[in-house]
């Protein structure tokens, strides 16, 4: 009897499943494994417990819903300068860096917070762009106090205006220019760590 896929539920299970698995290996497993091998050669990330804690807060609050960490570039225009490969940045991203983010930027970062939507600015170089600890605290506490038309949510629950009795690792937030009145502000340990993480983002690595 001639084989007829239309009449064989077995083949209708196996053929698409097999084709799919094969393609998954080619387009996901292989490139992922290549990148993993490359990453394994890279030096381990330096340890910064407070930054790591801040990164965890960033993830828990899912700031990545609005913020990317990728400066996009055009590989086809890449240049070799002094043995260094430089990928020029897309017009839309030039405000964030003069060089596109390379794979080394994400080494050992689990998960890599590249992001898929830019409702707020890219954060790749935010620590260099905005180095003031106090600015970040006041901004997180009330984004519109420092950036009037911002749509970023306020994170007031990360702050208190009176120190609790058993306060540990809290920090008093200093005043910044242009911000008048308002209560005294104390950053909770989560906020302290979060800002440490933001300040650690000093620009693209390749």
């Amino acid at each position, binding site marked *: 009897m001639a084989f007829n896929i239309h*009449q*064989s*539920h077995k083949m*209708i*299970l196996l053929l*698409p*499943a097999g*084709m*799919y698995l094969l*393609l*998954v290996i*080619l*387009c*996901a497993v292989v*490139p992922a*494994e290549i*990148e*993993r091998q490359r*990453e394994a050669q890279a030096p381990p990330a330096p340890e910064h417990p407070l930054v790591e804690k801040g990164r965890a807060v*960033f*993830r*828990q609050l*899912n*700031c*990545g*819903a*609005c913020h*990317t960490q990728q400066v996009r570039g055009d*590989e086809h225009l890449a240049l070799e300068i002094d043995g260094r490969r430089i990928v020029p940045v*897309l*017009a*839309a991203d*030039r*405000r964030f860096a003069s060089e*596109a*983010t*390379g*794979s080394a*930027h*994400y*080494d*050992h*970062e*689990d*998960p*890599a*917070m*590249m*992001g*898929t*939507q*830019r*409702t707020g600015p890219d954060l790749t170089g935010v620590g260099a762009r905005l180095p003031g600890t106090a600015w970040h605290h006041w901004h997180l506490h009330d984004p519109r106090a420092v950036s009037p*038309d*911002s*749509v*970023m*949510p306020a994170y*007031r*629950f990360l702050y208190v205006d009176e120190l609790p009795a058993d306060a540990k690792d809290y920090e008093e937030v200093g005043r910044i220019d242009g911000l008048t009145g308002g209560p005294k502000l104390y950053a909770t340990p989560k906020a302290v760590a979060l800002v440490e993480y933001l300040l650690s983002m000093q620009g693209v690595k390749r």
Partner: protein
Amino acid sequence: MIASTVIALGVSALGVNAPGPLAIFGLAPGATVLIGVLAFACWLGWRLGGGANTKIPVGIPIFVAAAGNDPRFAKLVSRYLMSACFWLLLGSAFGLLVAFKLVDPELLTDSSALTFGRVRPAHTMIVLFGWAGLALVGMGLYVVAKSAWLPMHQPLQRWELGAGNLALALWNAGVAGGVLLLLSGHVNAGREYRMFVWPAMVPIAIAVLLLAVLVYRLLARRQVKGVYISGWFILSALVWIAVVVVMGYQPRWTSGVADRVIDGYYIHNAVGMFFTPLAVGLTYYVLPKLLNKPIYSYALGVLGFFTHIVFYTVIGTHHYVHTAIPQWLETTSVVFSVAMIVPVWASTGNFLLTMKGERLAIAHSYSLPFIVVGVIAYGVASLQGSAESLPWVQETLHLTHYTVGHAHFAMYAFVSFLAWGAIYGLLPRLTGREPPVALVGVHFWLALAGILIYVLSMCIGGEQQGAAWVQGKSFMESVRLMSPYLVWRAVGGVLMFASHICFAVALWRMRPGAFSMAFGHQGASGLGQGEA
């Protein structure tokens, strides 16, 4: 047809970088893409819609069709749909909250549970897995049983019914647990559409496997020689999503660029190897059934099926073009994204040609209009997606709200409308109860008006957002210019939410009735059926 598709795509893509001729119309790139594909769809609808030999199918009355159905099967399918509907209401309430938060960012900012970053994934996870997944799988069970010609009075054996019910319970538990964990801070951050932490995904994965076994069993027990194409899509979708979930939660490639390779793969395979084949598979059954005629070309369906596998699997990295992901993978994903025109238009064209000349039937039906919108949206949203994947288009549109417009165009106007069409078209045949026609009409128009406002505001706004970035304007300017569009989006969202309430009431009115319960096994004559 494929030639004209390519031309339409080419023209709209051209508009993106062209300062020359298209600039005369003052058209911005993204708007050009959208208008190009919409115009193409209108032309296609106009070409296909006409025809002299319009006929109205002479269906048998619903209550007679339903007589003799197994009431336990009716209950099972109905349970899937009621769960789906519950998640739709909850998920779109979360969606509204997200939309409102971008209009008034001070809304509900006092607790971490309801902060933007948690509510947004709660919305996407609930509507994707809770609503779309359960609705499509529920109808899928019905379509598989019917297209396998399993005896009407007992399509499912006892253990099969049990497996179906168990899968539903696990699935619901997974979504509920996942959302609670998510809101309380257990976020699988940075990983779209798999924002649930893994313990919540385990029950869903088990449910998927149970359902795959169940569907396979039903196909194996079929009373006809061939397996109808719907069965191919539905069985494969369950197998594929099982692989996708495993890949999404495997512990090996979780850091660095490897993590992003998996992420791109996951994002688009979760959508394209699950919701799309389920919705398309259902339509291959529903459309001919409701029109009382065979599908235009069965072979085109098979072509669509296999090209879907080959092209769709590979396109995920188009979410990360211009990034640190290997260039060859980016390029491959873009080429295959454009090639997606083949499977998409094999099916879309097939459906449109099946509908050709059936204007009157469509006008007289309360379920077919949903299918018409869904089919057109499938074609148009996919063309939009192909255009969006092109690197030079991405320079302006990627990372903006344009993507959100596209996501809703696809998941709402395409997938959700086809799910509604299938439910309104088939469920009454199973339960013997029809929904109030006027209510379904209100559902249709509210949902359609809502989604059009939603998609247009996001696409036009998103395009201007991207243009502002390219022109080097201050970032805050791009935030400010979005604000009217975000308000319009919320308006569209309110209409969509209102339409979901109509759907919930209509679904309740289609619940399995006393009739199919009491007379089910006796093949009753239809006496005493009130609601039809």
